[in-house]
C-alpha cells in the first residue's frame, strides 16, 4: 500500500511538473513571437505575421495578407502615445506620396479606446487604413515592446526594416524612405 501511495504521489508530482513545462513552452512560443526587428537588421527579411482586424476608418476588416503584392508600412500606435502625435502627419505624407506606387500605410491602433483613436485620426487628418487591436494580441508576433513601432513590409509579405520608436528624426525618415524603396522594388 505504501509503495502504491508513493507511486501515486510521484505520478502526481511528475504530472504537475510536465504541465508547468508545457505551459512555459506554450507561453514562450505564442507570446514572445519573433524578434522581427533583429532579424530584419541582419538582412533576413522575416515573414510579417498575418492578422485580420476590424477597421477604424471604415466598416469591415482588413487582413494583412490581402495586401500581398503591395508594399506596406505598418505603424503600431495609440492615441495616448505622445511621439505618435508627431509621427502621424509624416505617415500621412508618406501615404499620400506613395499610394499610387503600390504602397499602403496601415495604422494598427492597439491598447487604446476606439473613440480616442477615431478622435486622433480626425485630429491629424489620417486617411490611410487603420485597424484596431484593443487587447494588443497582434503585438507579440511582431515583438513590439513600445509605442510607436513601424515595420516596412515588401510585396511578398517580408519585413524589410523595423523601427522601434517614432520615425521623427531626419535620419530615421531617410532610412524609412530607403526601406520603402526596397519594399517597392521587391
Amino acid at each position, binding site marked *: 500500500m*505504501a509503495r502504491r*501511495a508513493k507511486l501515486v504521489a510521484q505520478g502526481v508530482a511528475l504530472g*504537475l511538473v510536465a504541465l508547468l513545462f508545457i505551459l512555459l513552452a506554450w507561453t514562450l512560443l505564442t507570446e514572445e513571437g519573433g524578434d522581427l526587428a533583429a532579424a530584419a537588421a541582419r538582412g533576413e527579411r522575416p515573414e510579417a505575421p498575418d492578422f485580420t482586424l476590424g477597421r477604424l476608418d471604415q466598416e469591415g476588416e482588413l487582413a494583412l495578407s490581402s495586401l500581398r503584392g503591395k508594399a506596406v508600412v505598418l505603424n503600431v500606435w495609440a492615441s*495616448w502615445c505622445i511621439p505618435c502625435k508627431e509621427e502621424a502627419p509624416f505617415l500621412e505624407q508618406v501615404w499620400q506620396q506613395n499610394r499610387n506606387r503600390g504602397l499602403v500605410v496601415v495604422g494598427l491602433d492597439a*491598447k487604446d*479606446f476606439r473613440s480616442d483613436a477615431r478622435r486622433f485620426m480626425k485630429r491629424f487628418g489620417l486617411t490611410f487604413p487603420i485597424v484596431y487591436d*484593443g*487587447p494588443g494580441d497582434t503585438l507579440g508576433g511582431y515583438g513590439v515592446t513600445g509605442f510607436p513601432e513601424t515595420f516596412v513590409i515588401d510585396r511578398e509579405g517580408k519585413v524589410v526594416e523595423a523601427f522601434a520608436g517614432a520615425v521623427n528624426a531626419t535620419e530615421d525618415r531617410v532610412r524609412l524612405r530607403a526601406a520603402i524603396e526596397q519594399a517597392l522594388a521587391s
Partner: protein
Amino acid sequence: MTRRALVLIVSALVTSGAAAGAAPPNAADLEAELVCPVCETTLDQSTAPVAQRMKAFIRVRIAAGDSEQEIKDALVDQFGPAVLATPLKSGFGLLAWLLPLAALLAGAVVVGLLIRSWSGRRDLPADDRPLDPQLEQRVDEELARFDG
C-alpha cells in the same frame, strides 16, 4: 406588537438591501480590479497614460449611472478579458479558478496517502516470537553483568 416589530425589521432589511444594490460602484474598488493593458499592474498602481484614461472613463461611467459589471464589460469590449485582474469564470479563464482547487485536492490526496502509509507502518504487529534460548541466556548474562 411582536408581529408588527418583525414586519418593521424585515421591511427595514429589505429596504437597506435594495439601497445597497442601487449604490453606485466605487471607483477605487474598480481600479483595484482592473489591469492597465500596457504596464499590466492594476489601475490603482499604474500611472501609464492609458491607465489614466481608463480611470477617467470609469469615473465618467459611474457618473452616468453604469453598474460595476457594465463598466467592466465596456472595458473588456475595448481591451479584452486580460483587463480583468481576476480571470473570467468561463472558458479558458475557468482553468485559473479550477487548477488551484485541483492542486489542493491532489495535495490532500497525497498527504492522506502518506499519512495512511506512515500510520500503517506504526501499526505493524510487534514481533512476539520467543527469543532463541541461547540468545535469551546471553541477554540475561549481559544484564546481570550490567547490574553487578
